[in-house]
Structures are given as C-alpha cells and as structure tokens.
C-alpha cells in the first residue's frame, strides 16, 4: 500500500552525507556549530584579558545595550558580549572532553556487546543497568569534592556515566544487523570479524550512532553549563555560559536581562545539536532503510477525526430495496487512488466482483496485484492515504462507499468480519484473549460483562479449540500460530457477521495447520451459510475452499469464473501462465514455464491490457484501448481479447488426453 509510494520515490544515492548537505536546516545547524567552535578557538585569543578581569569599567556598570557594549555590561561593568564569546571555549572544551570519553567507550563496547553477544554482552548490559540507576550528577559532585574545580575530571566522570546510553544504543543497533543474512553470507565466505565489522556493521549503524552522539553532546553541554552555573568547575572571574546565568540570577531584580544572552547561547547550541540529530535520522531512514513503513499522521488522525465527527456522510442506506437473492456483497467499478507528488495515482482500477450468501469467493493474485487493497476497501480501512475515488460497494442493500466512519464502524465486525495473515500480532499484546473477545461481544451484541464471558468461551468452542476456558485466560503471546488464527476467527464471528473477509489467513502457517484452518473455514461456509471472501496468492488454497475465483493483475480484475473452469480452462493468459508456472503440476526437473518481465507499477500501466508486455498472445489491438470485461459464457468473464485462442488450446489438451 504505502510501499507503492515509497517505491516510486526511488532513492538516488545512498551517500548520506551529500544528501544531508542538501537540507537547508541541516546546513544551518552545521554552520552554527562550526561558528561556535570558531568562536571558542578565537575569542580567548582576541580578548586575552577577559579570563582574569575581576571588574571592568565600574562607572558603566549595569548598562543596557550601547554602541560600545552591544549586550550591555554586568554589575561589575564588564562587557557581556565579550564574556559570552570568551566563555564559549570552556563550554566547548567540556563537550569535547565528554564526547571523547563517550565515543571511545560507547562505540567499541556497544559493537562488542551487540555482535558477539554472550558473556561480554551480559556483563555490559548489567553494568549499563547499574549505571542508569546511579544519579550521575551526584557522582560528579563526589569527584569534584576531590578534584576541586577540575573541568576535565567532571567531564570524564560524566562521559563514563553517559557512555552506557551509547553502549546500549550501539548494541541494539548492532544486534539486528549482526543477524542479517548478508553477515552470515560473509561469514560463510570466511571473511574476518574485523572485515565484517568494518564493511558490513559499521556503515549500517553509523547513522544511529551520530544521532545519539549529537543527542549526548547536547546532554553534556547541559551538564557542563549546570556545573559552571554552580561555580564548581571554573575559577571565579573566568566567564562561562552557565556562570553568567548564575551572575544574572544574583542580579535578577536589578538587571533581569543578564540571564538572556547566556540562556539563548545555550538554547541555540542545544537546538543545533537536536535539529541536527533529527536531520541525520531523517536522512538515515531514507538512505537504505528504503521502503520502510513510516506511520503518517494522516492515518492516525482518521481515528481521531472519526471520534470527533458526530454526524456525517450521506446515509443512503436502503434507498433501493434490492431483492435478497442478489449478491450479499457487490463491488462495482471500484477505483482506489492515492495522491502522489505527480498527481492522483490509481492503484485499483475498476474492480467488480460479487459474493453471494454462503459462497466462498477467492481473490487471487501476486504481490502488487491489489487484492488486499480491494479487500480493505470494502471495510473502509485503506491506509497510506489511499481513497475510493469511484464505484460502488453494495453490501446487504447499502452502498458502503461514502458512509461516514461512524456508520462503517457499525458494519465492521458486526456485519463484515476480518481475519488477517498474522493472527498473533492482530491481538493486543496486553489484554487476555477472553477480554478482547468480550470487548467485541459487548460492543456488537450489547451483552453484559457476565454474558459476554460465557459467550466468549462458546465462541472459542465454536472454532474447535480444546479447553476454551483456558484459552480465554491466555495472553496472545501464549498462543501458537494455529490457535491464534482460530481465536482470530472466533473474534471475527463475535458480531455474527454475514460476510467474512479472510486476507491470506493461512500464509504464515504450516501446511498441516493450514489444512485445519481451511477445514474450519469450509465448515463455517457450509454449516452456517457464511459468505467468505478469501484473499490468497496460493492456488492450492483457492482450489481447496473456494466456489468461485476472481483473478487480479496490476490493479485490475482479469478473470472471473467458477472454481473448476478457471483451473481447467483459464481464459486469461495471465491465469493460464500463473497456473502452469506452479511446480506442483510440472514434471520434476523439467523447465518450468515462466512469465517474462515484471508486474508494472501503478502509474506505469499501459493504455490497454495491463498484461500485454508479458503476454505471448498480445497484438497491437491489446494496446489501443481499455479492455472491457468480456463474457465468453454466462458464468465466465475475462479481460482478454484473445480468450478464444486459449479456449482452443485447452480443447486441444482435452483431445490429446482422451
């Protein structure tokens, strides 16, 4: 879904540094920090006297801004700007000292803990935990009570106390990288640990390290100025940012502005570190993490927006009393689009399909075909900014398109149930299974807590779980995959829905468990007349439970047929090619028929048939205009102009076989 948008924004060069410099905000931060360092180096050289200046021009003390003294003078008549600039050095020296310790300890130890694991890891983790519980500032005070006014001692101590933060971060950044398959491939090739750390691990974790380092630099700056404020690390007349705040506070009633210049200097520097770390993180994310899902605020706001919306949407329920034997669910020309930088991008194009009462319809396709998106559109649960832009979804006589979030909510769970590919993570990890079932039961059936408790166990029994009461007391992480999918089905049944949408319900399961779940779905369809829309990429699963199949390719429905005809006599070249590329039916060792090329991405769809570039039957006609759904027979539809050729071929097979 959102992968579509991220994939189109192809990442040009993984050179993170270059892209960092292309960001104005990052440039500003780097520029500012360089300026501060320059001042720290030069100011004490330009005004060498300031460090020892006990008092300045006492006659001009306590002045505001004047042409001679831009930032005014303090109670002793000293120039505030000069003191601020000269005071930069001690501040920056403190930061550098602390950072040297932090980096020298944090990076190597973190890498060791993360990459090698085992005993060193356990020891380091234990030390880190211990250090997190030590009130660092107090320990610095202990040190300063011994090494009086020693900035170096204070900063080394603080560096020691802060480095576990970096150790922990580096460790947790290294750990997943060290388990990546490319590291294992490198180990298989016999590359040395040093080579692997240098070439594979460090480049991957550099981003997070820099982010955390600039964060820690800010923390060190803060502590440095705090200690300076307490007058613990700098001998009296020498200026420092923190010390100037202390001086300002002494004169807060007579010269309230004195606290502002050092405060702003600290704030700006902190801000530079903070913003820089944000910028580096952003660059890092887009560099090689690539199509990683970032949650957009827009998605989340939908939840809240819905809560605030009291009424809304047109209510066109029951405007035309459709007869009952018509399809329970009927999608008609449903188009789904996302808004992208290049305008509106269609990702589902005119999907039409029906599901009747008690019928199981398979929605098949490969990744990128839009089958899951189609299923989610029914429930109004599109993510990544996708929207239904045209078409109708008629369910039990109502058009679901255009319903308000609140109206859709009454349908979700109670009239249409959903089970998904990953049943385990579909449950809230912190509530018991029983509690979560009771929640939906009370919501949909208006039960009391006590009634719901009984009903929840009944539901678990209905999906054939042994000892349902015990299962209800479990937390999701205590279930196996097969059990979790049964429970997920139980939850989907809690509102007594008439339609169940099953989105790849067995893909994550072992074959033996899959067989049981499919059996359960079949029983629901057969014994309880439940309509099921089964989304799957697995033709075996489709063959096992479906009555009819709808094949999707590149955002379109390309073929619709009964389950036996579609396998025996596919009337779309894509269906035919896909079926034959399945090794299941091939002679072992033979060359498998393949489909050349790749699925075109949304936005790159050709004018006519989406499959034309990969199709052996394609002619110029195929690219001229949109291909409509053709009806070879009453029960069959295909989006192919050449379906007759295919039909003849399969007749030929019939002949040769008999």
């Amino acid at each position: 879904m959102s992968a579509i948008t991220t994939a189109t924004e192809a990442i040009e060069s993984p050179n993170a540094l270059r892209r960092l410099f292309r960001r104005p905000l990052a440039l500003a931060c780097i520029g500012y920090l360089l300026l501060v360092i320059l001042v720290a180096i030069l100011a004490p050289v330009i005004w060498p006297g300031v460090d020892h200046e006990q008092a300045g021009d006492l006659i001009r003390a306590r002045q505001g801004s004047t042409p001679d003294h831009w930032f005014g003078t303090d109670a002793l008549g000293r120039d505030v700007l000069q003191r601020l600039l000269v005071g930069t050095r001690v501040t920056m020296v403190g930061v550098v000292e602390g950072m040297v310790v932090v980096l020298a300890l944090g990076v190597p130890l973190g890498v060791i803990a993360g990459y090698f694991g085992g005993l060193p890891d356990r020891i380091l983790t234990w030390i880190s935990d211990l250090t997190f519980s030590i009130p660092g500032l107090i320990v610095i005070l202990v040190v300063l009570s011994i090494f009086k006014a020693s900035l170096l001692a204070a900063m080394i101590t603080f560096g020691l106390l802060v480095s576990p933060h970096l150790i922990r971060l580096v460790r947790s950044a290294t750990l997943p990288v060290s388990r990546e398959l490319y590291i294992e491939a490198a180990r298989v090739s016999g590359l040395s640990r040093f080579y692997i750390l240098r070439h594979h691990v460090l480049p991957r974790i550099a981003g997070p390290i820099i982010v955390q380092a600039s964060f820690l630099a800010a923390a060190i700056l803060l502590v440095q100025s705090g200690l300076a404020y307490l007058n613990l690390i700098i001998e009296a007349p020498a200026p420092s940012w923190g010390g100037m705040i202390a001086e300002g506070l002494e004169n807060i009633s007579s010269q309230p502005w004195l606290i502002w210049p050092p405060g702003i200097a600290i704030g700006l520097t902190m801000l530079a570190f903070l913003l820089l770390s944000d910028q580096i993180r952003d660059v890092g994310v887009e560099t090689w993490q690539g199509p990683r899902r970032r949650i957009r605020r827009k998605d989340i706001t939908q939840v809240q927006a819905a809560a605030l919306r009291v009424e809304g949407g047109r209510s066109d329920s029951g405007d035309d009393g459709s007869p009952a034997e018509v399809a329970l669910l009927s999608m008609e020309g449903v188009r789904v689009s996302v808004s992208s930088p290049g305008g509106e991008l269609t990702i589902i194009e005119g999907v039409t399909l029906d599901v009747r009462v008690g019928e199981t319809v398979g929605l098949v396709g490969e990744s990128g075909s839009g089958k899951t998106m189609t299923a989610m559109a029914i429930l109004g649960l599109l993510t990544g900014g996708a929207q239904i832009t045209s078409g109708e979804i008629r369910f039990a006589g109502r058009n679901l398109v255009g319903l308000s979030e609140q109206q859709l909510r009454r349908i979700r769970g109670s009239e249409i149930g959903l089970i998904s590919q990953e049943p385990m993570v579909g449950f809230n990890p912190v509530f018991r299974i029983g509690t979560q079932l009771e929640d939906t039961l009370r919501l949909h059936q208006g039960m009391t807590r006590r009634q719901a408790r009984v009903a929840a166990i009944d539901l678990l029994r209905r999906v054939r779980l042994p000892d349902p009461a015990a299962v209800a007391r479990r937390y999701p992480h205590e279930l196996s995959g097969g059990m979790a999918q049964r429970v997920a089905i139980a939850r989907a049944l809690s509102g007594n829905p008439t339609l169940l949408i099953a989105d790849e319900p067995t893909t994550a399961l072992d074959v033996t468990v899959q067989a049981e779940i499919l059996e359960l779905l079949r029983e629901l369809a057969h014994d309880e007349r439940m309509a099921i829309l089964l989304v799957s990429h697995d033709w075996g699963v489709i063959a096992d439970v479906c009555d009819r199949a709808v094949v999707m390719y590149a955002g379109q429905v390309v073929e619709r047929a009964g389950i036996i005809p579609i396998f025996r006599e596919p009337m779309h070249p894509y269906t035919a090619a896909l079926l034959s590329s399945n090794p299941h039916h091939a002679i072992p060792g033979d060359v498998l028929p393949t489909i050349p090329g790749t699925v075109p991405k949304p936005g790159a769809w050709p004018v006519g048939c989406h499959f034309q570039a990969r199709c052996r039957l394609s002619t110029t006609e195929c690219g001229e205009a949109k291909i409509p759904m053709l009806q070879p027979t009453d029960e069959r539809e295909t989006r192919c102009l050449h379906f007759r050729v295919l039909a003849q071929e399969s007749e030929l097979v019939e002949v040769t076989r008999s």
Partner: protein
Amino acid sequence: MTSLDVNVALQQPQVRRGSRIGGLLRDPIAQVITRRILFAIPLLFVVSALSFVLMRLIPGDPARQILGPSGSPEAYAALREQLGLDLPLYQQYWDWLQNAVQGNLGTSIFRGESVVDILNQRLPVTFSLLFLSLLVTLIVGVTLGVLSAVRGGATGRGIDVLSQLGFILPSFWVAAVLVSIFAVQLRLLPAVGYVPIDDSVADWLRSLVLPVAAIALASVAAVARQTREAMLDVLGSEHIRMARANGIPPHRILLRYALKPAGTRVMTMLGLEAVSLLGGTVFIESVFAMPGLGSIAVSATYQQDVPLVVGVTVYFTILVVIVNLIVDLMYTWLDPRVRTA
C-alpha cells in the same frame, strides 16, 4: 480437529511455572520486588565503594583538614587513629560498611554532625520536589504526548515545539526566567525558600510551584516525546487495524487499546527521567535556596566535606532504587509478557 500444535501450546505455561523455585517467587509482583532488591545491593555496594576509594584520594586527609595547618603532630596522629585513618583501606571500608548497614554514615567533617541526621532533616524537601515533579511529568507528559500523536496541525506542532524547548533549555535558566517573571515582576509566588508541608499545605504547594515547573519541563518534554512515538507506533500496528476492523470505537481504541501497550515505553522513559530529575534537584534547590539534599550536596562539594557527599550519594541511590521499583511494578502491570516470559 485438534493438533499437537494446540496441545503443546496448552501445556507450556504449566511446564514453565513448575520449573520455578519457591512458592512465593511464583508471584510476578514478588519477583519484581526481589529482583530490584537483589539489584540494589550491588548498586549500593558499587556506589559506596567507589565513593569511599575516591574519598581517600584526597590530597592530604580529613584529619589534616579538620585540624588545619596549625595542628600539632600528636593531635594529628591521635585524630587519625580516632578516625581510623591509620588502618588499611579495605579495613576502613569494611568499618564504614558495617556502620552504614547500621544506619551510620559517619560524621560531617565541616559541620561535625552525624551525616544521617543532617540528611534526614533535608530529605522531605527533595522528596517533595521529586514526587511532585514525577507526578507532573507523568500526567502532563502523557497527555501532551497522546494529544500530539493524535492531532496533527497546530496542536501537534505546538506540542512538538514545547517539547523541543523543554529539551534545549537548562532547568536552572528556566528557573531564573520563572523567578524573574512570577516572583520579581508579578510577585505571585515566592522567589526562594521552602515551606514544610506540616506548616501549611497551601504554602508548601506555593513554594514548590516554580521549582517543579522549572525542573519538570525537561522531563515533561522527554515523556511527551516518548509517548508520542510509542503511540504512533502502536496506532500503526496490526492489532489496532484489527480493532478498527472489529468496529471498536476510536476513543476506546485510543485510550484502551493503544495507550496501555504504549505505556511500557513511557514507563521506561519515566524511570530514566526520575534519575535525571533527581540530578536536577541539585541545580533547582540552589536556585530557590531550598534546604534539600541537592543544595547540601553542592555546599558539601565546595567544602570538600566528603563523608557528607558520599552520604548524599547513598541517599540518592536509594531514592533511585525506590523509583525504579515503582516503575517496574507499573511495567509489570502494563505488560503481561514481562510476567510470563
């Protein structure tokens, strides 16, 4: 149809539980408390041993400091013996540790009083500050974080800016600004001092408003940030999608289904913030001239009153242990995986 899959999974918890030692330890709460206490012992040991070794690194020694340069060699030797300074270092630490376990942390060099007496007197001040700051951090931080996660637009951006300000501004500077506005200009609140809660609850609160505001700003910012990130992660997760697919109303999703899982990360953050809040009392008590542990730590540092500084370290460490224990208990309550895993 049933399968092994089902059966094995049903048996697992019992197997695990059976392998645990002791009946009491079966209770997760008791486990957390035991673990924390077991953790506190090495922590206190490390902190005190470090402090003790550092203490003996002082150029000159406490006897010389107490007597000053004018003291006679006989008096010096006598005092050394009296203070136990003639004994080997490990013997001194062992004596100190034995005393410490019995609640005797030695005598302040500068004040000549018992360290424990001095610190007990000042504990309520720091405790009030810490307790109120944590409360404010939790309530305000989580509220702002949730709001920021849910609301885009101006509200969200406002909260983002606030949390960034909280991060970049030093607490003592914020304190100075607050004093300048609310105490000096508007004269609404006292600029300095602390009123014990026994004297007057209202005045106690009034005396704590500015210190708490100054010290909690950073941790409110940190907790708000963490809450927002955690909420965004949880709201984007599969179980929230499934909750929506099951027709759970949005406010319920937000406050029940998302907040509780996000709470574990918030708690972790709160534990870390408690440690830095405690450090922050050092500055804030100085700004507001509050007679707490932090301010005495600073003056003891000036005076090189090592026993007193070490005493404060021990007190602070115990406070951290208590806060962490509370955080752990809340964590256990929030996340069942901690309980069973």
